[in-house]
Structures are given as C-alpha cells and as structure tokens.
C-alpha cells in the first residue's frame, strides 16, 4: 500500500467561487476518499421567519441563492399560496414560467463557463459569459435586476410584460439561442473537452437512485426525474419531455445541461405564444395557517420548501431542502478513485451551490 496523504481542498480555492472544504485522502495521485466539511456560508435565514413577516420573507427567500434567485422566490410563493389557498392568475403563472426558464438559461450558461474554467479552457469560459450577458440585459429590461429579479410575490408577480416587450424578448432570445449553439458545439465535439470529461466521475444509475441525486446529476445517469412534470406554474400546459443522458459521467451531465438550454428556449417560446391576458396578481388577505410542501425544479435539481403558519404574520417554521445538499453524497461517491487533477471538474459537474445548501 502506498503512503496516504491528505490534501485540503478549499475553502478558498481558485476553481471555487464559493467556499466548501474537502479533505482529499490520496494514495499517490488517486483520491481514496473525500471528506466534505461545510458551514462557511451558514447564516441561519430560516430562523428569520421569526423576525420578518411572511410577505417580507419572499425577498429573503430570493437571496438564499443569487443564481437561481427567481426560482427560490417562486418556490416560496408557491408554498405560501398553497397554505393560504390563493388562486394565482393565469398570466402570472406564465410570466413565472418565462422568468423561471430565463433564469435557468442564465444559470446553465454560467455553469458551462465555470465548467470550462474548471478544466482550464479559459476562452470557452469567456465566451459562455459573453452570451450570458446578452440574456442578463433582457432580464434587466423585464425585471429591473440583473441577478436578483425581485419580481416574485405572494399571489402573483410584481411586474407585467407588455406584448411588445414579449415580442422583443422572443427576438432577442432567438439570437441568444443561435449564439449558444456555437458554444455548446464546442462542449459536444471538442476533443480536449471530451478528454477531461468522458468516463470521469461515473455515477451509475443504481447509485444515483440509492444516494438520492437530483436534477441534471440524476438525469445524466439516465433517470427522468424532473419536478416540472408536476405541472406547477404553466409547465403542465406546454409540451416538453425531461432531458436524459445515459453516459453517467461528467460528459453526460454536461450534455444534459447543454440540451436543457434549448429546452428552456423552447418552453419560453411556447409560453409566450400561449400567455393569456388578465391581471398579474391578486390581493392577499389574512395570515397563513397550516402547512405545505412545495417541490420545484431548479437549474440544479429539485428544491423542497416547507412552510408552517400559525395564523400570525410570522411563519412558525420554514425549511428548505436544496438540490446541492441532495447531490453531496453522490459527489463523494464520484470522487472515490478519481485522479487528483479531475477533482475540480467532478466537483463542478454537480453544479454546487453552497449558498443554497447552507443558507
């Protein structure tokens, strides 16, 4: 047996935008096991429900994570609407779908960039983020914010999009879609990308089920699990199928995200064609009483929101189970037996969002 060394990875590491600490137990260049330790970003915002009322908490929920911020806000609102039995106007549901998918595209483009950076393809990173900036312009135009949208609200959405704006957004999205094709073609075909990703970080179908992986991680292992199939917002009214890949490796997970990009574009076009006229919010009266689970698909996977109200302005309990938390056990499994140089690439393929996980 070779001598074992322990290499600390993080919390401050060039490849990680966020702090997570892994103790990598190595035998020569092989990783024998990885021991994660977290807690660097814990703020304790679930307990904030005791200080902020349930309407204000929407903004706190949006700031659980700045990348999928809109979907966090939307999930929180869905949970509160579930407790209070609020019927959200149809138009608001479609707008949520449009913004939700825009934020998914933005998140996936961001991830593609970080992933390219992870295996040292700097120019591809820059290209991904250049395409992403075009989308951020559209988001800013329609919501007012670049990364924190602030448009989700209990009972609907805070802003409407005029038909002219919708048309413009659609035209712009078509341009962005064309630009994304140039980008994803590199991920799909480039031999240097394939060399770093194919056959690396394998998570078998059985392991994915046993360890409870979610989102693109589980879909990359050939399991069609997508919460949008529950039909919340307007997902039940447009036609789509979950993207799955059967490669089980880093390349498969990357391909899931590349293909989901186009799925999201398609969903937005469909939603824009079908969006009905009408109000975008309803007045919310009373206080939440009772409990509710909301399950929503984020760019990283399934998020679960649990809220419990006791007929006061402040919720009694608020709990979030985020996708990265579910994906940490599969990650530890993938890291076992890999090369040290592949660790950043494998860590990135679960699209870790530590800020979500630790809250």
């Amino acid at each position, binding site marked *: 047996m070779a001598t074992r060394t322990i290499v600390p990875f993080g*919390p*401050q*590491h*060039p*490849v990680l*935008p*966020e*702090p997570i600490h892994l103790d990598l137990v190595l035998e020569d260049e092989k990783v024998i096991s990885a021991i994660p330790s977290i*807690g*660097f*970003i*814990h*703020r*304790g*915002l679930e*307990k*904030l429900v005791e*200080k*902020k009322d349930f309407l204000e908490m929407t*903004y*706190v929920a949006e*700031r*659980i*994570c*700045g*990348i999928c*911020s809109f979907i966090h806000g939307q999930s929180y609102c869905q949970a509160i609407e579930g407790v209070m039995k609020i019927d959200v106007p149809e138009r608001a549901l479609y707008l949520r779908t449009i913004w939700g998918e825009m934020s998914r595209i933005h998140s996936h483009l*961001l991830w593609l*960039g970080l992933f390219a950076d992870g295996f040292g393809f700097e120019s591809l*990173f*820059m*290209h991904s*983020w*250049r395409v992403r*900036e075009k989308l*951020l312009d559209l988001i800013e135009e329609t919501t007012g*914010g*670049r*990364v*924190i949208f602030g448009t989700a609200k209990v009972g609907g959405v805070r802003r409407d999009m005029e038909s002219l704006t919708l048309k413009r957004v659609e035209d712009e999205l078509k341009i962005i879609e064309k630009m994304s094709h140039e980008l994803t073609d590199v991920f799909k075909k480039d031999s240097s990308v394939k060399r770093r990703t194919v056959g690396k970080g394998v998570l078998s179908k059985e392991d994915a089920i046993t360890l409870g992986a979610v989102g693109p991680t589980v879909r990359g292992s050939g399991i069609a699990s997508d919460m949008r199939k529950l039909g919340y917002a307007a997902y039940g009214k447009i036609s789509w199928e979950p993207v799955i890949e059967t490669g089980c490796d880093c390349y498969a997970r990357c391909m899931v995200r590349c293909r989901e990009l186009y799925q999201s574009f398609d969903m937005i076009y469909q939603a824009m064609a079908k969006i009905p006229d009408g109000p975008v919010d309803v007045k919310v009266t009373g206080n939440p009483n009772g409990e509710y689970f909301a399950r929503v698909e984020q760019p990283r996977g399934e998020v679960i929101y649990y809220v419990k109200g006791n007929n006061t302005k402040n919720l009694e309990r608020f709990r979030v189970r985020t996708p990265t938390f579910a994906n940490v056990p599969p990650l530890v499994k993938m890291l076992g037996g890999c090369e040290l140089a592949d660790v950043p690439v494998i860590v990135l393929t679960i699209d870790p*969002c530590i*800020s979500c996980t*630790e809250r």
Partner: protein
Amino acid sequence: MSFFKKSPWVIHYDGSSCNGCDIEVLACLTPLYDIERFGIINTGNPKHADVFLITGTINEQNLEVVRNIYNQMPDPKVVAAIGICATSGGIFRECYNVKGGVDTAIPVDIYIPGCAVRPEAIIDGVVAALGVLEKKAAALKTMKASA
C-alpha cells in the same frame, strides 16, 4: 498610479453571500466589462494579490478564513467590501449566525453597497481602492526610508 510597476491583482473570497455579488465580481472579468484588459487578474493566491474583494457577511466559521487570507497578503493591501451584506450585514443582519459586515473581522478600506452590486459599481469601487492602495504604498515607502 505612478507608484506601481504592474497592474494590481485581486483576490476574491465569498464570505457568506448569496452568490449574487460573486457572479457580478466574475462578470467584471468577462468580455462585457473586461477589466482584464488593464492587466487586472483574479488570482487564487493571496500572496500575489493587492486588492481583497470580499462579498457577504462574516459568520463564526469563516472569520478565521477571512483573517487568514488577509494576513497572507503582502503589504500594501486594500480591502473592498462588496455588496450590502459585506458592508453591514444587509438583509441577513438579524440572522443568528451573522456577526455583521466584513469590518467585524478585518479593516475595510472601501465599501461598495448594492444588492446585488452592479459590475459598474464594483469597477468604480476598485478604482477608488487603488487610490487608497497608492497612498498606503507611499506611506510604506517613507516608513522604510526613515527606518
């Protein structure tokens, strides 16, 4: 900027922010804003960095990490607190695990508020930080000359 022979390098650490400001810091380096054209590089090594960009609040666990990075940076150095969380705690101020802004751990030279901060504001703040860096460098030089 007459003092410097090279472009300032920055190091970025995410205290406990929501990622909003972090991705905006990264966006500054990418083609639309592209501060790399001035030779400003986001380095992963504190020993190479002149400017410490920190986002998010300080909590019990990252306090030591932030101090560590700060202590490893060579003098002269400046610290820029990016985002309202790094400035004062922001929306998370009342959370039980939040000690407050970055100035509860290390001295801060420039505060850049916003939620999330716009890249323009970050660039503006870093330029202001460079002014402070130059003053600190000049002070260090006179101190060495008199010693």
